């Protein structure tokens, strides 16, 4: 049933956000701390557990696949309701932050790549399957 997939997702989302809220109260910030991340972990662990146990029926997967596919459009809708006018006053900051983040991280690629090549197991695992 398609609703099983949607329901599983909704359950994980609410539990994750609940944990995030509890954590926020615990550390004294009036905020949801990492709720989305917890929910994602829950979905990964949950879907793997179900898969191992008896497989996940195709309609159930479809219930999740729709929301997975609709994620970029929702981000577009999110972008369309932001206070861009106000953000433009700080546009140079956004531009600088984005550009510098790319260059800083790109510069680190060869170093981290080399770091892991000393580990032959990881290098083998990274070989293409076919």
């Amino acid at each position, binding site marked *: 049933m398609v609703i099983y997939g949607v329901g599983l997702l909704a359950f994980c989302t609410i539990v994750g956000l609940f944990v995030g809220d509890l954590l926020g109260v615990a550390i004294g910030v009036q905020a949801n701390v990492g709720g*989305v991340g917890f929910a*994602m972990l829950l979905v990964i662990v949950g879907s793997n557990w179900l898969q191992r146990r008896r497989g996940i029926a195709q309609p159930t997967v479809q219930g*999740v696949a729709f929301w997975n596919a609709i994620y970029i459009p*929702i981000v577009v809708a999110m972008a*369309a309701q932001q*206070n861009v006018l106000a953000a433009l006053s700080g546009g140079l900051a956004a531009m600088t932050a*984005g550009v510098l983040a*790319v260059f800083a991280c790109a510069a680190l690629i060869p170093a981290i*790549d080399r770091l892991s090549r000393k580990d032959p197991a990881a290098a083998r695992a990274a070989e293409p399957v076919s």
Partner: protein
Amino acid sequence: MIRTLLDVVQRNGLLAGFGIIAAIVWVAYLISNRLTRGRVHGSAIAIFIGLVLAWAGGVATGGERGLADVPAFAGIALLGGAMLRDFAIIATSFGVEAAEMKKAGVSGAVSLLVGVIGAFIVGAVVAWSFGYRDAISVTTIGAGAATFIVGPVTGAAIGASSDLIALSIAAGLVKSILVMIGTPFAARMIGLDNPQTAMVYGGLMGTTSGVAGGLAATDPALVPYGAMTATFYTGLGCLLCPSVLFLAVRALVG
């Protein structure tokens, strides 16, 4: 008649939102395919159009919610609101195999941590040097330098204002577009020609649309490897930025 039409559109706001966004995405992919030959991913163009329309909405209405302040487009607020946004982002983690997480190995894990924290520090330092001094602003912009998802999720979690969230989306968008366009040119320089490096690259860059678009333009065979680590980036960012990193910033700037 026009009045009746507007009335129906307003009563069915969420559906109107789906229609409007579908039109935006359609135009974006048309631009992507025709004008950039697929080099700039359609999703990045769609988000850019969304931001431009938000700007236009702000100019037209003087409000703070972009296009959603135009009554006929109010449904966009529901579609792009926190509830559906979190729900859809969480859906992307479904089907990620725990075994594949291990396959990415040490390099994948290290690149993810360095990628999120590195981008955050760069963004936070830039925010600081542009005169943002409070922990919420610095954290939100720092998170935006991770991805355009981590920024708003973090901002919403720690109570940032809408203009800050827009700023963090803009930072993430600049990053995504730059990764998309720049990857084919930088590939040779950074040795991006094998699955292992593609995974490290995905973990460091993190922006899923940027990584997928950039790798597709470099070597389509590498896309799944880069996308796999990049998928974890947003989750890790959403986990770290509003929690550990926010607390760290608050401890530093008070």
